[in-house]
C-alpha cells in the first residue's frame, strides 16, 4: 500500500514535471518564432502600436517633409538641427557612393554628378525610428526619455538634464541638443497632431505619399497593408533596436 502511494506520487511528479517542461519548451519555441516574424519587437497585444513605413521608390527628394517638420515643431532653422531630413544617395558606375543632405534637403537637391556617371540614385527620408528597444531610452540617466504605450519615443524636456548620452546612443543620428533649451530634442511623431486626429506634419505634406504610419496592432491598418505588400527592411537591423520605421526598397548602402 505504502509502495503504491509513493509510485502514484512519483507518477504525479513526472506528469507535472512533463507538463511544466512541455509548457516551457512550447513557450520558448513560440516566442522564438515570434522573434523571427517581426522585424521589430513583437507588437503589444492591446491598444495602438504605431509603426512607420517609407517607400523610397516614391520619394522625389522635394524636402517638404524636413521643412514642414521644422516649422511645425519650432526646430531651430540652423542647418545643424533636424528632427527629419532627406538624404540623396548616388551610386556611381565605378561603385563609389556619394551621400548628400544639404540643409537636410529642405531646399531640394541638385545632382552634382553627371548623368552618364550615375549607376543609380535615390532619396532616403530619415527620422526617428521610434524603436521598441530604443538605446536612447535605455541610457537616459533620469528617465526623461521614455516610450509611450503607443510606441512613440518622447523626451520630457522639463526633466531632461542635457547630458547628451542619448545622442551618443542613437545609431541613426536622430537627436540633437537644443541650442536654446539645453535639453535634447527629437521627433515626436507630431503626437500633438495625432491626438487631435491629424497626421504628423511630414506625412501630411508629402506630395507623393511616400510616408505612411499606422497601428501595427490593427491588421487592416495602412502600415500593415504596406508591410504585407512590400519587401520592407529597417536600417541597421544588426543593432537590434526594434526599429519601427520600415523602408520599402531600402538599398544596403543606406546607413
Amino acid at each position, binding site marked *: 500500500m505504502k509502495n503504491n502511494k509513493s509510485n502514484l506520487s512519483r507518477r504525479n511528479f513526472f506528469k507535472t514535471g512533463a507538463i511544466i517542461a512541455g509548457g516551457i519548451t512550447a513557450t520558448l519555441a513560440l516566442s522564438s518564432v515570434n522573434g523571427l516574424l517581426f522585424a521589430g519587437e513583437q507588437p503589444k497585444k492591446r491598444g495602438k502600436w504605431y509603426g512607420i513605413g517609407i517607400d523610397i521608390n516614391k520619394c522625389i527628394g522635394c524636402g517638404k517633409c524636413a521643412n514642414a517638420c521644422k516649422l511645425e515643431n519650432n526646430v531651430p532653422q540652423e542647418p545643424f538641427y*533636424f528632427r527629419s531630413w532627406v538624404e540623396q544617395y548616388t551610386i556611381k558606375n565605378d561603385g563609389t557612393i556619394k551621400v548628400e543632405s544639404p540643409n537636410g534637403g529642405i531646399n531640394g537637391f541638385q545632382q552634382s554628378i553627371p548623368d552618364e556617371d550615375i549607376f543609380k540614385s535615390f532619396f532616403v527620408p530619415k527620422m526617428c525610428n521610434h524603436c521598441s528597444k530604443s538605446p536612447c531610452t535605455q541610457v537616459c540617466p533620469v528617465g526623461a526619455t521614455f516610450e509611450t504605450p503607443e510606441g512613440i519615443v518622447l523626451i520630457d524636456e522639463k*526633466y531632461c538634464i542635457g547630458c547628451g548620452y542619448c545622442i551618443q546612443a542613437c545609431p541613426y543620428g536622430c537627436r540633437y541638443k537644443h541650442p536654446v533649451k539645453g535639453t535634447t530634442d527629437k521627433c515626436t511623431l507630431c503626437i500633438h497632431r495625432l491626438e487631435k486626429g491629424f497626421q504628423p506634419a511630414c506625412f501630411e505634406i508629402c506630395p507623393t505619399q511616400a510616408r505612411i504610419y499606422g497601428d501595427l496592432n490593427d491588421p487592416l491598418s495602412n502600415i500593415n497593408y504596406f508591410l504585407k505588400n512590400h519587401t520592407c527592411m529597417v536600417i541597421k537591423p544588426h543593432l537590434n533596436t526594434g526599429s519601427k520605421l520600415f523602408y520599402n526598397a531600402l538599398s544596403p548602402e543606406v546607413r
Partner: protein
Amino acid sequence: MIEHFQNLQEVLSKVDGYIYPNEIELNWSILIVLYPYITGLVAGAFILASLERIFKIHVLKPTYVLALLTALSFLLVATMPLISHLGKPFRAYEIMITPHLSSAMAIFGFVYLWYLMVVLVLEIWFDYRRDLVIWANETTGLKRFIYKTLALWSTDISPKAVALDNKIGYIITVIGVPSAFLLHGYVGFIFGSIKANPWWSTVLMPVIFLFSAMVSGIALVMLIYILITKIRKQILDMNCLDTIAKYLFYILIIDFVLEGLDQIHRIYEAEESFEALHNLVFGKLFFTLFIMQGLLGTIVPLATLGTLQFYKPKEQIRRAIYLILSVLILVGIFFMRWNVVVGGQLFSKSFYGYTSFKIDLIGAEGYLMAFFWLIVPFGILSFLLWLLPPWKKIDVDHDI
C-alpha cells in the same frame, strides 16, 4: 549663440564626406575628456596607496598618505566637468533622486559617493585621527578648532584606540580596492556599452580604462612626490621611486597589451565600421593617437622603464628620467581619453564621413575652463598638505 552657430558653420564647411546633419556638433567635448581622466587619476592613486597597505609593499610608504590625499583632491573635482557640461546643470541632482536603472550613467552618482564617502574620506579619517587629536592639542585658536572638528571631537589616542583605527582603516582599504576598480571600470562601461558607436563599443573598454587609470594615477603620485620633496628640499627616497617605476612598468605593459589586443581584434574582424575607423585613425586621430598616446605616452615610457629594470644609471639621472616619464605618461593618458571621447564623435555613424573638432579658448566648454578644472585639484591638494601634512604624521605600522 551667434558665435556658436558661426563655429558650427565653419565645422560644416570642413565636413569630410557625409555625416548625419545632427552630427556636426560634437556633444561631448573637452570636459567629458577630463571626466574619465580625473576619475582615472583617483582610482590609480588609490591603488598605489593600497599596494602599500594591503599588499604590504612597505617601501612605498613615503607615498602612501600622499597618494590618498591626491586621490581625494581629484575626486572632489571629478564631477565638476560633468556637471558644468550639462545642458541643465541645476537638474544634475535628478540623477541621484530618480535614477533610471537601465542607464549606465545613472549609477555614477552612487558609485562616486560610495567611493568618496565610504572609501576615501573614511580611510583618510581613520589614518589621521590620532594626528588630528595631537595637532588639536598642540595648536590654538581657529586651527585647533578645525583639527578638533575634523577629529569629530574624539580624544582617545590610547594604543588600543589607535590599533582599532588601523584595523578599520585596513578593512576600508580592502573594500576600497574593488571599489576603485568599480569606479573606473564603470566609467569605461559608460562608453563601452554604446552599441551605436563601434569606436567605443568593446567589451575591453572597462578593463582598458581601469589599467590606463592605474598607469595615470601612479604616474601622478610619482610626479607629485618628486615635486613636493623638491619644494620641501628633502631627499627623495630612491628605493620608493624605483619601486613605483617598477609597478608602473608592469601595469603599463598590461595596458599596452590590452589596447593592442583591442586594435588587433578590430583589424582582424574588420566589421562594417572598419574602413571608417581605419581612416579616422590614420587621418584625424593620427597625431593624438600615434604620436601623443602611442609614441610619447606609451612606447617611450615603456622602453625607458624596461631599460631601467636591468640598467640603473646614477640617482640624479634616474630622478630626471622619472620626472620626465611621469609627465609623458600623464600627457599620454590624457590623449588616450581624448582619442576615445573626441575620436568616437569625429566619424559619422553612417560611416560615410567625418566632422572636425573646434574648441574655443574661453566659454563654458573652452580650453580655459578645462584647464581650470585640471588646476583646481592641485589647489585642493596644496591646502590638504598644509592642513594635514603627511610628513608631520606619526608613522603608523601598517603591518598589523
